[in-house]
């Protein structure tokens, strides 16, 4: 634990020049509600499952926040969810598949757009309505169109279109440590702090990734493979970027609705790292040499 009067992070905690290389991705926010907080959460968890990385998932998704009755369109408990995909078409497909299979199927739920419908939107209720087999009902209220789809516990209500924005994906922090348990503890605390930042999600399990990847592989079919430079047990076999004392690295990936949100989350993670610096060797970030992503989030600028 950090002594209470530690004067900020030590100078070499953040690796000099480290930056996260982030990409634009099309993003949307959903609000899922249900009769009880438990069912709302169940729906949200189910629909954000298997959505860690677009390397092999249709989208990156996560629960942004749990919402109470005063915060949802229908006055029921709910959760807000962010989803990210490479294109609006891919996002539309992913969201409607996920809502169709994971929210519509979940008892008592309803699903709303959590972003204003600007000029760029995706159809969700507009696609799912066909499940109603002709018995779906369109309803316009307050300038929004909803679809009411008859189901076995009454009807599933879903907004027709969801607003999208250009989001930022691939923000990240990598915690390097000597003791795997201590390093994980820092990552957990950092993830908790970062999750409280609005408009971001941490798509990996518990917010933390342990299998960071590099682009490409010796196997032609693979687009990505293990990040050998960060794999401590390969030290000596391949070139490594890990300081010699490091035997464990954990990565937190951040997807946000804006660059500011991703930076805020990164900063929150760094603050935790600073507070727990005696459990870490260093904090760094993953990038591709700065050639691929337009957004470079320099860690030093955020301290």
């Amino acid at each position: 634990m950090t002594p209470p009067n530690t004067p900020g992070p030590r100078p070499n905690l953040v690796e000099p020049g480290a930056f996260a290389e982030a990409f634009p991705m099309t993003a949307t926010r959903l609000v899922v509600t249900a009769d009880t907080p438990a069912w709302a959460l169940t729906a949200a968890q189910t629909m954000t499952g298997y959505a860690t990385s677009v390397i092999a998932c249709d989208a990156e998704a996560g629960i942004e926040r749990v919402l109470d009755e005063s915060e949802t369109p229908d006055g029921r408990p709910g959760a807000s969810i962010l989803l990210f995909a490479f294109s609006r078409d891919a996002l539309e497909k992913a969201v409607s598949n996920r809502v169709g299979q994971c929210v519509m199927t979940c008892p008592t739920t309803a699903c709303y757009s959590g972003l204003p419908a600007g000029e760029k939107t995706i159809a969700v209720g507009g696609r799912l309505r066909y499940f109603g087999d002709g018995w779906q009902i369109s309803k316009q209220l307050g300038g929004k169109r909803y679809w009411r789809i008859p189901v076995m516990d009454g009807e599933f209500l879903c907004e027709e279109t969801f607003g999208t924005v250009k989001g930022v994906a691939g923000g990240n922090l990598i915690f390097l440590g000597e003791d795997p348990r201590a390093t994980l503890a820092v990552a957990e605390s950092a993830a908790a702090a970062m999750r409280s930042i609005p408009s971001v999600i941490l798509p990996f399990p518990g917010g933390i990734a342990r299998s960071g990847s590099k682009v490409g592989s010796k196997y032609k079919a693979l687009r990505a493979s293990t990040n050998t430079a960060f794999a401590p047990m390969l030290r000596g076999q391949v070139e490594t970027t890990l300081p010699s004392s490091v035997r464990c690295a954990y990565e937190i990936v951040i997807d946000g609705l804006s660059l500011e949100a991703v930076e805020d989350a990164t900063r929150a993670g760094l603050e935790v790292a600073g507070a727990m610096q005696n459990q870490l060797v260093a904090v760094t970030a993953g990038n591709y040499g700065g050639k691929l992503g337009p957004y470079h989030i320099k860690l030093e600028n955020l301290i």
Partner: protein
Amino acid sequence: MPLALRFTSASQLPLELDGILPERVQALSQGAIEKLLIRHGNRLEPLAEHFAISGSIDDGTLIFESAMPSGHGIGTGMTAGVIRVVGHAGRRIGAQMRGGRIEVEGSAGDLLGQGMSGGRIAVTGDAGDHVAGPLPGSRRGMTGGVITIAGSVGAFAAAGMRRGLVAIGQSAGAGLGYRMIAGTLVVQGPCAPNPGLEMKRGSIVLLDRAIELAPTFRKAGAFRPVFLRLLARELASLNATIDIRAFGMPLDLFHGDLLTLGKGEIWTRAGALASETQA
């Protein structure tokens, strides 16, 4: 500051006010406004002959300051801005309106919101026949927008309605929702027997405790779907004089008119249907 028009004429003959719109008046000088022609009976006469004009329209608001039951067509084709009518006004208020807001502090005549496709009309008093109805010769009534009436309405309210929301704070006459195509209609008070005849789609919520439906409406059961919660919230945000506590419990759902598609729905308080309770 709003532009105020005070009715100074003694004439009871029909006065067509359809060209007097905030968006049109905005670009005009006081002199030009005074010279705008309105139809009085079968003649065209300058606005100033019937109205005292004061103020300016820099806040986009136009006020008719006095009651004029023979002033018709206020806000016809309106697209933006606000028109306030202080006192009773004539027929066709907000006809073919596409946007903006009309507030009537008093009662409105027949044909309120006729052929309306967008915007918002609020009436503190009553309204006459054919609220949200079709233009003559058309079968399709209101296609969008919101009308709230605190008082009662006459016959054929929301007949042929295609889209939008109409909320009526008190009673409704015969032919309510007749041939409704879609849209949402809420009535707080009593309504004449046989609402929703020949409705194809759309939702009618009737909150009186005694409702009589045609035999071609069939009960589905009592439900409390999410859409009614959304509707209650929308009504509350519109300040409609609807007691939304009724939405807090399951309402009886009837489908009809089975003679015409049958995808319409009428929601009533549980047990409000006279033929049901005594059958």
